């Protein structure tokens, strides 16, 4: 390589670095992380860091599914209700009907897939817009679980179920190991398989994708089923962690999850998204929460910061596409 080529390459690297979508979320994350570390030395201890990762995991698991859904130009508002319903399914199976844990967990996953399939059916067969279809199931699923539990928790879960949410491997909670694996697998699927490629293509331009011979209805349907399974997984870990099925589990989670995706650079308009960005977005929400508590700042202010960051993330997204300067 000639000497002249080196600076050009380096400049290219710098430009590339700042055009990476995830940078928009990574920098605020680092800033908040450093501020939190400075304001309280307990913040940066291993147990606290692991606690934050664990708290991130539930949002992240669901946000992975949401990344695929949003990238494919869909939306799922019912995820919080689906997570909550998983707890009730587990409670009913294991506590009311005495079904062994080894059977109850696959059944709960199946129930998640079914809940997702209902969304997929409404959206791809009945052609109800995703916002409306999943707004309806957001209420319906929550209503069903509230009706079944009559508003009281189902508890306690059997002892052999607790290990999932409370067990450790090499000193690290199972759920953290799980999100590490999920991160790798989901990144691979999104970037290196036809499934991920077609999802992004569908989000970018559904008609062109269909003309390329891809069955976009089936693809879309499968995304909602996958979302349902991921909600079930999050619900299983959550229920196991707290050994009870709370009727309020997952309330408001859909907005947290969507916020994590948007902060992480997933486009609400489809076609763009990354799992790394979503992880950063999910971490951001938890670090902000934890950091502000440790800095003795009222939790009420958090939501204002989250709102500001969402606006900044979207403005960066629009600026990058040139939409801000475009005149209609």
């Amino acid at each position, binding site marked *: 390589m000639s000497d002249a080529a080196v600076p050009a390459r380096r400049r290219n690297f710098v430009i590339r670095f700042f055009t990476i979508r995830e940078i928009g979320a990574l920098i605020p994350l680092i800033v908040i992380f450093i501020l939190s570390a400075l304001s309280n030395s307990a913040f940066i201890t291993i147990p606290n860091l692991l606690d934050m990762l664990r708290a991130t995991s539930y949002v992240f698991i669901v946000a992975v599914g949401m990344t695929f859904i949003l990238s494919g130009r869909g939306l799922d508002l019912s995820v919080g209700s689906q997570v909550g319903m998983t707890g009730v399914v587990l409670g009913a199976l294991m506590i009311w009907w005495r079904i062994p844990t080894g059977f109850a967990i696959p059944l709960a996953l199946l129930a998640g897939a079914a809940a997702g399939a209902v969304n997929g059916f409404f959206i791809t067969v009945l052609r109800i817009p995703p916002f409306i279809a999943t707004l309806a199931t957001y209420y319906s699923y929550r209503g069903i679980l509230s009706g079944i539990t009559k508003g009281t928790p189902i508890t306690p879960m059997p002892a052999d179920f607790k290990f999932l949410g409370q067990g450790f491997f090499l000193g690290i909670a199972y759920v953290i190991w799980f999100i590490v694996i999920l991160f790798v697998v989901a990144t691979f699927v999104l*970037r290196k398989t036809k499934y991920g*490629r077609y999802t992004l293509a569908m989000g*970018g331009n559904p008609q*062109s*994708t269909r003309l390329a011979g891809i069955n976009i209805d089936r693809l879309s349907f499968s995304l909602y089923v996958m979302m349902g399974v991921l909600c079930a997984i999050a619900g299983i870990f959550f229920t196991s962690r707290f050994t009870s099925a709370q009727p309020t589990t997952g309330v408001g989670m859909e907005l947290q999850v969507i916020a994590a995706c948007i902060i992480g650079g997933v*486009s609400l308009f489809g076609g*763009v998204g990354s799992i790394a960005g979503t992880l950063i977005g999910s971490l951001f929400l938890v670090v902000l929460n934890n950091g502000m508590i440790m800095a003795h700042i009222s939790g009420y202010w958090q939501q204002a910061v989250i709102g500001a960051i969402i606006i900044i993330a979207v403005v960066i997204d629009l600026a990058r596409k040139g939409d801000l300067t475009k005149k209609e």
Partner: protein
Amino acid sequence: MRGLASGPFSKWRDHRVAEPDIILEGRNLTKMYGGVEALDHVTFQLPRHEVVALLGDNGAGKSTLIKILSGAITPSSGEIFVEGRKVELTSTRDAKDLGIETVYQSLALVDCLSIEKNIYLGKEIVRKYLGVEVLQNRAMKKGALDFLRGVGIRIDDPNRAVEELSGGQRQAVAISKGAYWTDKILILDEPTAALGVRETGRILSMIQQLKDKGLSIILITHNIEHAFLVADRFFILRVGEKVGERKKGETSPDEIVSMITGAVKAAMDGRAAADAE
């Protein structure tokens, strides 16, 4: 129902000698929408290694004809021959399998994907590892850029999404999306619409290069100047009927315009009326 011989435009009926090597032919194609004839007994021939410009005003039946030839719609009556063999085109998939690729300019590209992801969309190169199909992004990028270079299109930064490319580059990628996948027949729908002068030049030279590579091309356009730059032949439709067909050496832009608009007939009628006085 009017046949060719009795139609109002029969005076432009073709007197050409039979072509020996017709790669694609639609014979007596008719398409009815409700009671309306969008296409009325039109016979269209695409000679091998030629560019045929399909010309006509809005509503002339151009898009109905290419939709039939690309398998997107089936004709009410008529037959289609590919390389002399009678074929049934019930879907675009059938047409693609026979080597007929169609590029609809407005629908060709997924803006948020990069060049090679667009060109290979639906036909990705994969390798199996432990039973899992893994996309071979590097091989696809190389294939796409080599192809573009081969037809005279240079792309500085192949990693960019196509929405960030110039209009001409986008069009080149769109055409490649069809041209890459066939060595026979390429149908281009308005490839030079909404392009600047220089970019139009690039696209026309790309079409020329694709022809030199051995493709037979149907070019739908409104722009007669562009048609004259690359087409070997002109095929003119008006209100669903074939007006005529001309070889490039044997016609002029003026005649083609008259055929498109019907002005020749009107002018001649006018002269006849004047003579009679």
